[in-house]
């Protein structure tokens, strides 16, 4: 419909800035309500019911019993949380440090021949699907015919190492794959952070012969910290939800050694179909995620607030 044929009423609506904002936001708000708010409220409601999809009996309201059951260590949520936080903290710390180091290397070698190809190859693990990555690493780690054991034995005289079957190694073997996949992401964030630093300030620091560490803290970190913290936040949230990498590699085993919270939630909801119990579990995980995000945002804004107050 052309503007000329629009009714005066509609024209007036679109001329009003507030109404225009509402109209333009309406589709995304609808999407958000239908696909986010309603399911979250539904999840919250279901968490107060005893309901098994395969039970053939209607849901029964049981108040906080699901939450009490979870806190009373049914299926040992505390072990799963402890394992998950170890996975998140060690993984994200390692990925940040190595990713930042690689980022600086690439930043400082802008004229290196083949830099673009090297960067593309570096980012490849990040774009692979975790299920595919987990599956081929399961074969790489295999003690009987895996290539890693073959290479290790070519260098060191040792027996076959069962990376995924040994309770002492399995967790770290899975974590290593997670780092292989996601270190490039932190490299990317580091490059983005470094790109946000004004060239003039860097050149001024160079002319003044400011030592590298001081340049790092006073110039680079000052400008790049928001992007780096955003990267860490995204990795933390993503790492907390790790599921599709573990399923093909260990399915949570050996024993419970790689059973993270997302795996337990998946098992209870989509294998055992305990919809009430798993809803309560999901609500708790949601609260933990919100708490973690809030802490990050608080830390990120702390200095800005201090500067404003000062």
């Amino acid at each position, binding site marked *: 419909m052309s503007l000329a044929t629009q009714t005066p009423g509609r024209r007036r609506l679109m001329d009003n800035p507030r109404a225009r904002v509402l109209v333009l936001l309406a589709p995304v708000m609808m999407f958000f309500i239908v696909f986010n708010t309603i399911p979250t409220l539904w999840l919250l409601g279901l968490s107060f019911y005893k309901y*098994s999809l395969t039970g053939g009996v209607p849901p029964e309201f049981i108040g906080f019993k699901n939450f009490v059951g979870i806190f009373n260590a049914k299926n040992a949520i505390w072990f799963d949380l402890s394992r998950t936080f170890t996975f998140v903290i060690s993984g994200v710390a390692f990925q940040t440090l190595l990713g930042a180091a690689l980022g600086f290397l690439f930043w400082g070698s802008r004229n290196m021949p083949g830099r673009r190809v090297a960067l593309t190859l570096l980012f490849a693990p990040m774009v692979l699907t975790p299920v595919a990555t987990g599956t081929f690493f399961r074969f790489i780690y295999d003690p009987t015919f895996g290539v890693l054991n073959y290479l290790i034995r070519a260098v060191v005289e040792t027996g076959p190492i069962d990376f995924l079957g*040994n309770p002492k190694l399995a967790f770290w073997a899975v974590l290593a794959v997670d780092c292989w996949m996601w270190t490039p992401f932190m490299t990317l964030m580091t490059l983005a952070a470094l790109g946000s630093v004004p060239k003039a300030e860097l050149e001024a620091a160079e002319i003044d012969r400011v030592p590298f560490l001081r340049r790092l803290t006073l110039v680079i970190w000052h400008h790049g910290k928001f992007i780096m913290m955003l990267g860490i936040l995204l990795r933390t949230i993503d790492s907390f939800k790790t599921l599709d990498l573990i399923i093909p590699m260990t*399915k949570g085993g050996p024993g419970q050694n790689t*059973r993270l919270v997302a795996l337990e939630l998946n098992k209870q909801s*989509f294998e055992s*179909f305990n919809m009430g119990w798993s809803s309560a579990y999901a609500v708790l995980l949601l609260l933990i995620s919100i708490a973690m995000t809030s802490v990050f945002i608080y830390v990120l804004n702390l200095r800005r607030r201090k500067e404003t107050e000062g």
Partner: protein
Amino acid sequence: MKRTSTSPQVSRRSALRSGIALGTAAIVGSMPTRLLAEDHPLKGQKIDMTILGIAGWGPSSLGVAMSPLFAEYVKAKYGYDVTFAFQEAPFSDLFQKAATSLATKSQEFNIIISDSQWLGALAQPGWILNLNDVIKNNPGLQLDWYSKAVVDTYMTYPDGSDQIWGLPQEGDVEALFVRKDMLEDPEEQAAFEARYGTRLAQTWEDFAEMNMEEFEKIAEFFTRPDAGLWGFSQQYSRVYDFATCAFNNFLWSRGGSIWDPATGQIEGILNTPENAASLVEFKRWLKYQPPGATNFGIGEGIDVFVQGKVFSQIQWAAVGTAMISEELKGKVLVVPPPKHGTGADAKRIMSMGGQPWVINAFNDEAHMRVAIDFMNWWYLPETTLEFARRGGNPCDKATLSRDDFDDINPWNRTFKYMLEDGRSQDFWHDPKYSEMLAVQQEGYSAFVTDQATDPQAVMNYIACAQQQILFDEGVAKTEPSGICAGISL
């Protein structure tokens, strides 16, 4: 409250669907062929059917690979066209795929190849068609099955009732695959005799009489890590039911039980000192197996056997075609797994495998009719024979009793032997099977990988958790005892 198949929800749906089936089946069963071709209500129509089956599982895909034969059959007999699409997921994910679709009352999958333990979980919410009336009205489905184990495993829920929910798509049993070429090597025979003072087993009969003590000598003899060869392998993987099926072979054959189906009692039955000792014995056999055996499931087992890394393996008969690759043809003997114990007390009770067909209760009338036509066709003598010739394992007495059945596939003789009552059995068909299974898979995996070192504590953990699950469900009459408070792996 223990649920039975007489719950109103199930009965209403069953009655409705069965009524449709009854009407159509009555016509199909009672009229001459020529008349049927003229009067079939789908005559001239084209129906698209979808079968949901197990990914990477030969017998499942055979159901679809043979479906063009069914299309020809119904075109000629009933005058309608039918096509089949195949949807699939691995063992560990298939139930999830089926359940999430059926929970929405979808007829996305018209026929499903279910695993035997899922019967309760699919039947209880009324997702699959109760087949009692269908069988009653279709003489072609009133078969004489090879053993009661077939009916108990693939057809009945609740256990011991007369309610039929499935029909056997593929029968399956545990078998011992051994390298015949190694056994027949004169140098190996001489070396074995010199080391153990006894003859190396050669024939099917030798193995059928063998116990684990005798078999251990053979496994030990062929365990040569320096040469990249190990004597034996079985499944210990934490995935799906792999460790459970392998361990149940030990548990049952050594006189143990996993539960009391009548009362739902698990504690005190599963966690006996004898069963804990069986768990130790199950783990002890790892010393004859390749590194990484604690991660072995079906696929990993096939890989190491086909690559010649193990002399023998307890594996499902259903994967015989994969186990006996082109290179291994004529070099493999498939025999009954060894007995446990000695003398007259020696027992052999192994896990049942295999899958039933189940029919989606939400099929519309046309798809329901085709599904029932398909079942009638599947159990025709010529179809079951063709299925066997393509590597499948039928379960009807007529086919298995044929003189030539044992020679169709190398594992057929063992399949038939192990299918006899008392030699193989299934575990629970309860709707909560998945939750119960997950607990014990974790427990067995923890023990065989040394995460947990006390076998009794592991069995207590599993028994307590399963008792709680069944008590919460209303199936078990008693709550977990005091020893279960705060128990963990």
